[in-house]
């Protein structure tokens, strides 16, 4: 099967794959040199797939003793200039936060896939979007950010992987691919192909042995007075560049919309169906779907808030992304929430009901005097 999949890369044929395996193959195509991970549901297919495919490619696979170790193995491989990744699900991602903070401090590129599940604690293994705060606010200690991608189809998940490795290298940052149990498990037809890389800066900082050059040091400790503040300002300037250059979002059926639903990932798929049904029933509803969750599409939403009446955030949590929507809308319009925490997945009907409560179909509207 794998050989076949591989053989079809060149021809860019569509193959049916589950999200977890597809993203793993996409990482290999993106030139991932090393994968480190510790099993956890619902992303076990990634670890298992990598254990087969990475050695086949002559690359590195290590099943670590914990997520703490996995992220630090990523740290080590990255410090030598390699493209490297790990994957996990919510509880494991919590353990990785120490390492992600160190990666940020040391400005090392890394890709971390979080196939989210219900929390807090051990929670459950149902799909969830409850790690939004953790991912988009840095997650560990210190003033830092990670770039967060929130794909909503298996194809987009695949496309996010090459983007993630490129962004990580360009900005020397951790890129989090924020998926969930549904996206990881669902089978969809995908095209797997090698993408051209962005123009990448040379990794002249990498630890390769100080042969005929001065020593390189990768560090996050800055003790002299003012030095760490300076370092933080440098990081912030970099993050501003990311915010300026890398926002991705989809706008769907926004024309004349009175209600704008904001949703990402799998929730956005369900919302899209609800928007289609609402439109059929004459309700002017649109969707803004952030693809980068950090940087969040502030400008797009802020602009929409000048034209549209009402915003509804739909997410599989008690309401996390809604805070970013509120920040973007900045009081220009009401922002409501339809959230399903603890592994709950909203249905199309449920969202449609909510939309109905908020809109008046065009044909039932009173003529303006």
């Amino acid at each position, binding site marked *: 099967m794998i050989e076949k999949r591989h053989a079809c890369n060149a021809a860019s044929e569509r193959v049916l794959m589950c999200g977890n395996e597809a993203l793993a193959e996409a990482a290999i195509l993106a030139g991932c040199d090393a994968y480190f991970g510790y099993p956890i549901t619902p992303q076990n297919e990634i670890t298992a797939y990598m254990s087969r495919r990475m050695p086949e490619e002559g690359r590195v696979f290590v099943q*670590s003793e914990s997520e703490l170790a996995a992220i630090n193995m990523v740290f080590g491989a990255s410090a030598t200039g390699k493209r490297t990744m790990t994957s996990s699900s919510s509880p494991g991602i919590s353990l990785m936060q120490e390492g992600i903070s160190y990666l940020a401090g040391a400005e090392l590129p890394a890709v971390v896939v979080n196939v989210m599940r219900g929390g807090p604690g051990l929670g459950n293994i149902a799909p969830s979007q409850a790690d939004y705060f953790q991912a988009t606010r840095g997650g560990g200690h210190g003033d830092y950010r990670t770039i967060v991608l929130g794909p909503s189809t298996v194809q987009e998940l695949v496309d996010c992987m090459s983007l993630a490795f490129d962004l990580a290298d360009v900005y020397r940052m951790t890129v989090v691919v924020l998926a969930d149990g549904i996206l990881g498990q669902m089978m969809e037809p995908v095209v797997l192909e090698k993408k051209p890389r962005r123009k990448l800066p040379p990794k002249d900082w990498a630890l390769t042995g100080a042969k005929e050059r001065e020593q390189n040091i990768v560090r996050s400790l800055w003790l002299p007075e003012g030095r760490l503040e300076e370092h933080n300002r440098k990081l912030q300037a970099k993050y501003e560049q990311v915010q300026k250059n890398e926002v991705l979002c989809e706008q769907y059926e926004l024309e004349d919309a009175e209600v704008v639903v904001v949703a990402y990932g799998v929730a956005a798929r369900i919302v899209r169906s609800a928007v289609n049904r609402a439109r059929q029933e004459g309700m002017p509803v649109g969707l803004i779907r952030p693809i980068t969750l950090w940087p969040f599409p502030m400008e797009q939403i802020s602009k929409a808030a000048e034209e549209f009446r009402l915003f509804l955030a739909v997410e599989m949590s008690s309401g996390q992304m809604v805070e970013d929507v509120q920040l973007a809308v900045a009081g220009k319009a009401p922002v409501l929430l339809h959230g399903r925490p603890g592994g709950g997945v909203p249905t199309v009907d449920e969202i449609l009901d909510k939309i109905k409560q908020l809109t008046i179909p065009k044909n039932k509207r009173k003529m303006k005097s």
Partner: protein
Amino acid sequence: MKTVFARTPSLKDCTTHYCPGCGHGIAHRLIAETIDELGIRGRTIGIAPVGCAVLMYDYIDVDMVEVAHGRPPAVATGMKRTNPDKIVFSYQGDGDLAAIGTAEIIHAAHRAEQITVIFINNAVFGMTGGQMAPTTILGQVTATTPQGRNRTGEGYPLQVSEIMALLPGAIYVERCALSGPAAVRNTKKAIKHAFELQVEGAEGLSLVEVLSPCPTYWRMPPAKAMEWIENEMTKVFPLGRLKG
């Protein structure tokens, strides 16, 4: 004039931040000498711990990284697996390796990672003010064992080398000390052997435990600290080759 002793090139010509009588400076020199004698500066990557030796890269002139507390063996794994031609070593204190990083060192050895670990056992947490370490000996007074370490509630000193020697993936384990010129010479031999094994591609992890003085937090003059290693520490941590 004949030169009888010179600073080895991989040891930087600078003053360290270490306290008078501290063993870290000696251990650094032995590592730098080893790197130069083996001619591996151009392909060596070192890992500095969180602890008093965190600024080790200011003193040893090779490519180095500073990592989270206790995680050097995991970082070393990521480095060595992706760069099998490089010589990767970690330098870790007893808080770093034997407390917060116990899982990482055990599993790196368990996987037989081809790395070299220099383990500095000074029986205290130096950097944070001389608290109890897992290696603090019974009766030893520290910042957090004001009555002396008591086996009840505070536990026994952890014998890292003995544990490591049990693991098939650890191919060379030796405990030595910095308690005098002869002991330092032995330590040098052990460190050099541990690096040589990696250079030869030996299939496993080598660890050299170094009993190292901390006069500041042992609250004794440097000369007394040397004696304390020989008279007290070696009773709990006997010197010698445990494996390989």
